[in-house]
């Protein structure tokens, strides 16, 4: 009779399931800071409840313990099918082959959304699926540990998973309140377990004969080490939290999306310059505009400038902003003429989470995955997929302001736009002087903007994608702009940022959009409309300026690129020049590639998350492996020390006994519990093992008698123990265990906890 494995009553099992459930759903709450909304938590709760209470039900009908986890997995599958299977399932619960296909897609989407979204992430269906699946698997694991193996202390492991995740991803880590609640739930679980054990202990007393020794249950003694374990978990969580700011959000934003354009979202200029310098044009996407539009296609807008780096505002994805309907663009007044034109876009080799779209649009249809517009610049981002292979129709809102309307805007700027005029206190003298000069030449904001554009398009400036790199003033910072104004050679990045800086200097709100120029029509026709091809050499950056009543309007200061908008050419009634190709450029030598300026990276770290190093993942993996193997390593060291003590007969009997009981404990025997006397432990072991062979039994008795004599016998009568007996017993024990148990014993040597406990007690009694 092994008391701690004694069959639980239904009520006891239910109490343990309930406590495990509570621990899990509270631990999952730790993901709160990472995710938007609270619906996901209810989903996780529902899944955990289905698995754990379903498992309790299976136990209640006395299903063999080994089949319960299997049953729970089936319950999990049915639950996932119910929530996510949709029409592919039979009777809502039975998955079909199609359902698994759906699951596979959702899982892929979940992986992508984890790579792409920044925190707090919108819980798109695929992410919800990932969360539900993860919670379900954790629930099965927790149930296995608590109810099957009766090792509730180890339930801390599954509970730690959701707690540790925020520590990796955000600087603050999980909220302290959640940590405390989780610890409380963990202690509650232990408490319930202790109560259950105690009940079982009392219930079995009448089986025992009056005079035989009642076997001990480690009642009070199991609480302290488990509190210690919980504390260790919390400390680990907070350490991770404190020590991983450098990893921070970038894991969500970053390396996972490598290869995707602007995946880093930090310094789009660098990507852009590199792509422009590619010798071969890579087709990005093609489009068919029935109304003959040739708009710029914007990917993202960078509107924050700290003097060094232009960066996108750190806005998170808002799950309400579905792309089937867009709001009216900021600042667009009723007086401005607007028309709607559909454009069909087919993405080819462009892979990014930003959707190429004209600005502004009123709706986008036909996208796969979850796409949302950004509150400010109305750029469109995906939470769980990317542009590759997308085919969609954008309804472009063509606005056609007149010069008069723009002129009438004056210099009145609403509060919400004020931030887009911000510049560092000190601007280099050449910029300030030029701004003053251009500002004096005109009266209205609009005329000053036109003056800037005219100045930059003037004959003094030359387009070159190489010069800034060779002269190392690539980028868009104030120093770069000053240098550019001196060198007068550069490409769209320098032109756009110079115009944006000058505009801000003159009090006009400005930002820079990054995307593609209109592209080149091909001979292919669809319904008699030419298909327009856009490729990597059409990548472009252009400034947008804000005029009250009209909103954000693009300008084109880069000579020889794109089209100059009509409204920015006052008095010019001639037709717009055809789009020009950037002059072809020789491939850059590798050494000439723009270096990632480490200082700039640091400076940008706070705004949009650091660029993540590809080294991080292997390091994290390595760290995890080390952490996972740590118990095995410690155990093996302990084993070696004990064998050495046996050989040298340095309290050898004690060492041999501890090693034997440690091995038994690792293999899941209750005999290793430190609260048992050697005699009781040996009896428990024989009880459990029934079939321990004669040699093993002899070795067990020899070791037991030796340790009893060493611990309690008259001084000077200790007999040395033979290493052979220890080896014999340990081998016999391991021989009787299943391979799975043996592996578990190696990786999760629970005897380490017993060692800590025994050590403390003897110290307390010393």
């Amino acid at each position, binding site marked *: 009779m092994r008391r701690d494995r004694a069959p639980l009553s239904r009520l006891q099992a239910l109490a343990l399931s309930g406590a495990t459930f509570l621990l899990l759903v509270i631990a999952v709450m730790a993901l709160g800071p990472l995710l938007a909304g609270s619906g996901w938590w209810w989903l996780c709760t529902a899944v955990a409840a289905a698995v754990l209470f379903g498992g309790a039900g299976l136990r209640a009908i006395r299903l063999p313990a080994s089949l319960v986890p299997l049953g729970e997995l089936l319950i999990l599958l049915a639950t996932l099918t119910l929530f996510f299977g949709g029409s592919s399932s039979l009777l809502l619960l039975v998955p079909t082959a199609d359902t698994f296909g759906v699951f596979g897609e959702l899982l892929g989407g979940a992986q992508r959304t984890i790579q792409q979204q920044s925190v707090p992430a919108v819980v798109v269906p695929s992410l919800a699926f990932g969360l539900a699946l993860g919670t379900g698997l954790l629930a099965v694991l927790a149930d296995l540990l608590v109810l099957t193996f009766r090792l509730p202390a180890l339930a801390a492991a599954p509970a730690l998973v959701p707690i540790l995740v925020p520590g990796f991803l955000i600087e603050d880590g999980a909220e302290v309140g959640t940590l405390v609640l989780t610890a409380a739930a963990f202690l509650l679980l232990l408490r319930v377990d202790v109560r259950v054990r105690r009940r079982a202990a*009392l*219930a079995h007393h*009448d089986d025992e004969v009056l*005079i035989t020794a*009642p076997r001990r249950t480690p*009642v009070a003694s199991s609480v302290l080490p488990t509190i210690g374990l919980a504390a260790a978990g919390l400390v680990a969580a907070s350490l991770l939290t404190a020590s991983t700011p450098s990893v921070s959000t970038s894991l969500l934003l970053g390396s996972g999306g490598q290869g995707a354009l602007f995946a880093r979202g930090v310094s789009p200029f660098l990507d852009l310059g590199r792509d422009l310098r590619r010798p071969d044009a890579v087709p990005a996407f093609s489009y068919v505009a029935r109304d003959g539009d040739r708009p710029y296609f914007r990917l993202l807008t960078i509107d924050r400038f700290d003097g060094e780096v232009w960066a996108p505002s750190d806005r998170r994805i808002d799950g309400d902003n579905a792309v089937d309907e867009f709001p009216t663009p900021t600042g667009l007044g009723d007086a401005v003429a607007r028309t709607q034109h559909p454009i069909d876009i087919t993405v080819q080799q462009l892979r990014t989470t930003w959707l190429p779209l004209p600005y502004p649009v009123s709706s986008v249809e036909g996208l796969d995955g979850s796409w949302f517009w950004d509150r400010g610049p109305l750029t469109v981002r995906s939470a769980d997929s990317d542009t590759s292979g997308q085919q969609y129709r954008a309804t472009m809102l063509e606005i056609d302001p007149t010069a008069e309307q723009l002129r009438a805007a004056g210099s009145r700027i609403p509060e919400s736009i004020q931030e887009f005029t911000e510049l560092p206190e000190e601007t280099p003298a050449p910029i300030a002087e030029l701004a003053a000069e251009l500002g004096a030449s005109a009266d209205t904001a609009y005329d000053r903007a036109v003056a800037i554009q005219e100045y930059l398009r003037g004959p003094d400036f030359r387009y070159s994608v190489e010069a800034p790199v060779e002269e190392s003033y690539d980028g868009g910072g104030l120093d770069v702009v000053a240098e550019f104004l001196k060198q007068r050679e550069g490409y769209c990045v320098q032109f756009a940022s110079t115009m944006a800086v000058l505009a801000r200097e003159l009090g006009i709100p400005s930002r820079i959009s990054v995307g593609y120029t209109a592209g080149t029509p091909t001979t292919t026709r669809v319904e008699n409309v030419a298909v327009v091809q856009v490729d990597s050499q059409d990548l472009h950056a252009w400034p947008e300026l804000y005029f009250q009543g009209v909103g954000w309007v693009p300008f084109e200061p880069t000579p020889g690129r794109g089209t100059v908008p009509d409204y920015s050419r006052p008095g010019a009634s001639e037709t717009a020049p055809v789009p020009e190709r950037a002059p072809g450029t020789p491939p850059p030598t590798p050494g000439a590639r723009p270096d990632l300026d480490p200082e700039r990276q640091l400076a940008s770290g706070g705004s949009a998350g650091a660029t993540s190093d590809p080294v991080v993942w292997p390091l994290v993996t390595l760290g995890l492996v080390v952490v996972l193997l740590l118990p095995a390593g410690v155990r093996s060291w302990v084993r070696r020390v004990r064998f050495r003590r046996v050989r040298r007969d340095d309290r050898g009997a004690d060492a041999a006994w501890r090693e034997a009981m440690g091995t038994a404990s690792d293999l899941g025997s209750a005999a290793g519990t430190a609260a048992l006397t050697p*005699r009781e432990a040996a009896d428990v072991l024989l009880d459990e093992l029934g079939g321990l062979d004669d040699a093993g039994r002899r070795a067990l008795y020899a070791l037991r008698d030796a340790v009893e004599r060493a611990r*309690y016998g008259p001084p000077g009568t200790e007999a040395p123990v033979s290493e052979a007996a220890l080896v014999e017993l340990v081998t016999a024990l391991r021989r009787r265990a299943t391979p799975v148990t043996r592996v578990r014993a190696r990786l999760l040597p629970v005897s380490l906890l017993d060692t800590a406990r025994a050590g403390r007690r*003897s*110290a307390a009694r010393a």
Partner: protein
Amino acid sequence: MTGMPDPGIDEVGARAAAIVANVETVISGKREAVVAALTVLLAEGHLLIEDVPGVGKTMLARSLARSVDLTVSRIQFTPDLLPSDVTGVSVFDQSTRSFTFKPGPVFANLVIGDEINRASPKTQSALLECMEERQVTADGVTHRLGRPFVVVATQNPVEMEGTYPLPEAQRDRFMARISMGYPAQADELAMLSTRETASPIDLVDPVVALDELQAMIRTVSRVFASAPVKEYAVELARATRDDRQLRLGASPRATLQLVRAAKAHAAMHGRDFVLPDDIDALAVPVLAHRLVPTSRALGSHDHDSGPLIDTIVRRIVTDTPVPIGSARRD
């Protein structure tokens, strides 16, 4: 007393096993009670057997006495029994014209006191005084009792009317209390056939001589009890004093007798040192009868799980940590 060398520990174990086997030919299926009785005998304590009539209390005492060739006397306690009926009286001898002491039934190695709770408190305390002092004082003359001197008293817990239950202080003098319990069905059936013709007690032959027993007792007293084991016994006793469910805890005498009984227990198992397991095995028989539960604990006790006191003692044993190693360890 004799010149024979004290037996080794293995021999004590072997002889004890022989005694137990011998007694078991008479009382089958009651090994625990037999072992407990022999433990008390080897530790020179006194034994209290508490059970309903007819389960073999007296039979156990008598067969044990016969097995070790002890002198036995039996006192049936009744309300009108006088102290001198127990200890003996001084009578006037006409021929010598002096008082001579006529020893009472207490002058035996093994005294069976049947239904001790039926005697008046005065008579009870006369016996109990003998138990403690191991001597009888009459008319200013001290008469030493034999060695070993073991009182096996029986008490009937059912028919309590007109009885004087032993007060706590008196119960404390008994080293251990056991109850016999009803025999198993097979044992009861077997008993019917063996006792058809004759009392089997007549068939029991001594397996150990008196001087051999005395030597065994000396060996037992030399069994080693290490510091951690003694600490453990003290811990247990202290735990009974602090327990919420107990009104009266174990006395220091209880601790002393617990260790002494544990030594006998160890020796009977052929071990020359005491294990915590020995203490554990004897905790209930040695401690339980000395403890008084609170009325609250009595009120809330579920009788299906056995006597309340036994449950409490077992809980205390379970909750008290076992000493891990000897004092030399660290």
